[in-house]
């Protein structure tokens, strides 16, 4: 499912003294099966933008096309509901949405809302509990008894249970420890690769962008200021600093090397694997001479 923003504008509380334009003239495309990262300084409009992806907000001006469906300011709420099935939205700290008595009951909440029979819903819940690697002994436990990392998995399974085609992730690793973060990010990577899920990731963590994304969109003050492949976006460290954005650690490191005379012919590398490989080529190449 391809997503296209066409001159999207959004204003909070329009027509009041508190009116605030959060987005203006936003146009870009998220390709089907892509892994798109949306980055930008706090308050740049990222959250407002992604809330358009499943109809939590409707455009004030312009359109959002998601698959076949075109959303404008005139779209009815009923049509927005249809959209919510196709686009799964993992909020920041998604464990805050848990409420059922048991883990499985919480996961089957969405399928039941979308009209699956209780039997089908239970089946889906079990599949998704397995997909996020929740051990079977917690399935019948209260989600509130679990550890923070496990609660987050339950919440994510609850969203995957809608069988979405697009998964929107808002800072999915916030509050997790390094191990937990690594596990959650590789879970999404697996879903992306094995099930072809289109992923839209909103994050401040440029390392995750470098490691996983194949497309980066940079927002600032509600408009798109950068749109391209990670290598293109991260090629100009000064530009990123000007826009209050960090660099992936590898790119920052390679940039220091570049200033000390190293030459990276294909642009600054993004991951430590790439950097180590390129360094090895340079250093060994030298040895051979």
């Amino acid at each position, binding site marked *: 499912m391809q997503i296209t923003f066409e001159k999207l504008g959004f204003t909070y509380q329009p027509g009041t003294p508190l009116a605030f334009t959060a987005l203006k003239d936003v146009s870009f495309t998220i390709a089907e099966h892509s892994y798109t990262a949306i980055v930008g300084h706090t308050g740049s409009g990222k959250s407002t933008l992604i*809330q358009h992806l*499943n109809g*939590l907000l409707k455009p004030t001006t312009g359109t959002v096309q998601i698959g076949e469906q075109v959303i404008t300011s005139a779209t009815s*709420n009923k049509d927005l*509901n249809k959209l*919510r*099935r196709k686009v*799964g*939205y993992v*909020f920041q700290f*998604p464990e*805050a*949405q*848990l*409420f059922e008595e048991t883990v499985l009951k919480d996961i089957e*909440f*969405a399928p039941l*809302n*979308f009209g699956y029979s209780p039997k089908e819903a239970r089946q889906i819940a079990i599949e998704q509990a397995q997909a996020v690697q929740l051990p079977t002994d917690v399935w019948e436990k209260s989600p*509130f008894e679990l550890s923070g990392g496990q609660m987050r998995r339950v919440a994510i399974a*609850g*969203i995957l249970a*809608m069988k979405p085609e697009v998964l929107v992730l808002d800072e999915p690793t916030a509050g997790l420890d390094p191990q937990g973060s690594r596990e959650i990010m590789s879970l999404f990577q697996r879903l992306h690769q094995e099930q072809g899920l289109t992923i839209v990731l909103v994050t401040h963590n440029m390392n995750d962008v470098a490691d996983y994304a194949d497309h980066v969109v940079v927002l600032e003050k509600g408009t798109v200021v950068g749109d391209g492949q990670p290598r293109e976006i991260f090629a100009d460290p000064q530009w990123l600093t000007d826009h209050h954005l960090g660099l992936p650690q590898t790119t920052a490191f390679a940039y220091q090397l570049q200033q000390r005379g190293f030459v990276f012919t294909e642009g600054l590398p993004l991951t430590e694997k790439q950097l180590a490989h390129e360094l090895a080529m340079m250093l060994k190449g030298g040895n051979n001479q």
Partner: protein
Amino acid sequence: MNKLLLGRYIHADSFVHKLDARAKLFLSFYFIVIIFLCNNWQTYTLLGILTLVSVVCSKIKLKFFWDGIRPLVWLIIFTVVLQLFFSSGGHVYWQWGIFRITSLGIENAIYIFCRFVLIVCMSTLLTLTTPPLQIADGMEALMKPLKKVKVPVDEIALMLSIALRFVPTLMDETTKIMNAQRSRGVNFEEGSLWHRAKMLVPLLIPLFVSSFNRAEDLAIAMEARGYRGGSHRTKYRQQVWHRNDTLVMMLFAVVTGLLIYLRK
């Protein structure tokens, strides 16, 4: 909802804004008491003028007062209609079964309507011109005498000001959880009453859980900062009583005198 409860304070540089919160709070309550003394058109006109003068002195647009009345419109209409059809006494204009319209009924209905509107205007004036924190401080000051009968006034006041502080946070939280559940296919706006009531569960449980977590965090943070209740605490915020406050109190006293004179 936010607007209805608290976010109503509108900053302006007016006579009413500058009055002490204690004076404003006291007079708002006092106004409710004296309006029940009104029993003819002269007395209602008197308090009507007092309200109008107060509103004008606040430099706040009339529209905001209308916003204050609007949520109560049905309640007002209901009460007025009740008075209109079920009062007895005076000349009977119309009767049908238990319903009847009498001259006294019409009079009562008009008075009740005026009473409602004036009370809402005055209390709206209080919240429009006084920041919530000052209202809380004012309440604390007015409750001071209750300490004598062992009411934990300091604790209640602190609770109140913490509650005020957390209103915007909980509003944000509510929006967030609603959005999260919407994304899982919940429709809060449509469906039968029963369905809508049922859909409050996935909203309220997470809200309770997160509020409890917050409360626990806050309790620990407060304890770490040396909070142990009791009355040995000092206060950072202080209220200053000005000459204008005394003058306004005197004005209300004069109005009360006049009111008693004008009553039937």
